[in-house]
C-alpha cells in the first residue's frame, strides 16, 4: 500500500516520516525547476527530422518523446541549459531569452 506523503517546507518535525524515508517514487516531478530558466529552447517542428539526438542529452528528462517521436519540451522542468539546441544537427531548436 502506498502511503501518501504530506510533507512540505512548512511541515514541523512531528510530521516528518521516520528515518526521513521518502515513500513516493519519482515525486521530484512535482517540483518545478522550470522557473530557474533565463534562456529557453524553442522547438521548431517543421525543421525537426526526428533524429532524437536531443533526447539523451537532456539532463532534466525534459524532451517529450512519445512513440519514437519528439513532441516538445517540458517547460515545467527544463532549466534552459541549451545543450539540446547546441547538439541539434538541423538547427530545429532555437535558444532564446525567456
Amino acid at each position, binding site marked *: 500500500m502506498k502511503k501518501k506523503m504530506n510533507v512540505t517546507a512548512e511541515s514541523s518535525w512531528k510530521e516528518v516520516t521516520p528515518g526521513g524515508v521518502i515513500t513516493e517514487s*519519482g*515525486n521530484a516531478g512535482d517540483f518545478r525547476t522550470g522557473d530557474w530558466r533565463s534562456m529557453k529552447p524553442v522547438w521548431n517542428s517543421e525543421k525537426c527530422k526526428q533524429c532524437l539526438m536531443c533526447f539523451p542529452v537532456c*539532463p532534466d528528462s525534459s524532451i517529450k518523446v512519445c512513440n519514437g517521436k519528439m513532441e516538445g519540451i517540458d517547460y515545467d522542468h527544463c532549466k534552459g541549459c541549451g545543450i539540446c539546441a547546441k547538439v541539434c544537427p538541423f538547427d530545429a531548436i532555437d535558444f532564446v531569452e525567456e
Partner: protein
Amino acid sequence: MAYNLKATTEKPERLTGGHRMCAGCGAPIVVRTVLRALKPEDHAVIGSATGCLEVSTCLYPYTAWKDSFIHSAFENAGATVSGAEAAYNALKRAGKIDHTTKFIAFGGDGGTYDIGLQSLSGAMERGHDMVYVCYDNEAYMNTGIQRSSSTPKYADTTTSPAGKAVPGKPQFKKDLTQIMVAHNIPYVAQSAPFKNFKDLYEKAEKAIYTPGPAFLNVFTPCPRGWRYNTPDLFDIVQLAVDTCIWPLYEVINGEYKLSYKPKQKLPVEAYLKSQGRFRHLFAKENMHMVEELQQEVDRRWNHLLKLCGETE
C-alpha cells in the same frame, strides 16, 4: 539486439525532471543513460555516495528516482549497495522474492577515487552482483571545486589555485580504471556520453547484466567547475575522446578491447583551450606545461594501445 536510439526512448524514464542538479550538468545525462540500459521489467536498488548527484536528486521530501534509492555516506556506497545485494540473495533463497532486482551504485570521483575507494574495492573483491558507476567530473564539485585524485594535472581548483606560486594541481590524475582492472572482476569499462550514446548504453547494459561485480568509469563534464559555456558539453566530450585524454575501452575477464580510436588524434591544446580551468597554461611562461601534459597523454595512450593489442 543492435543499439537503436529510437528504441531506447521508448523505455521508461527512471530519473525524473525536477531534481536540483545545475542546468547543463553532465551527471544526470550519464545516470539516465545507464538506467535506460535496465530491462523495463527489472527492479533496481540504487545507492549513491555523497556528492552533487546524491544531494540534488534526493532532497527531502522529494526523490527524482523511480527506483528504490539509498542515500548513503561519502565512504560507503560500495558497502551499502553490496549489503543490499546480499540481503536480496538471502530473501531470494528463502523464496520471499520472485522478481529480479539489479544493484547499482553511483559515486562522483570524490566518493570513488578518494573517500569510497576502500568500500568499492571491498565490494568488488567480495564478488557481489552489482555495478559501480563513477561519474568522473574531476573534482569535489558539490562543496565548491576542491581538487581530488582525479583532477588532471595543472587544473585550477579552489584547493589547487593557479597563481604565481603554483600552476594548478601539481600531480597527475590517478588511473582508477586500471586499479579496478587489477581486481580481476568480470567487467570494467571506461566510457563517455557522446555521439548517439551507443558506447555508454552498451557498456552499461553489459555491466548490469554481466553476473558478478562490474565497474564503469564515465567522463562527466561539469560546466561550473571546468568553466566552459554550458551548451558546449558535448563538444568537450568529443575533444576528450579525440585527444585521447579520456580513452574509451573495456576489459572483459582481463581481455582489453579498445572501443574508440579517433580518426585523427588531436593535440591536447584543443581540449585544454576549451575550459577556463586550464586557461593559465596558455600564458607564455607556462606553455611547457602543455607539452608535458601531451607527453603524459601520449605515454598512457600508447600503453593502452599495447594492452588492447592495437598498434599506432
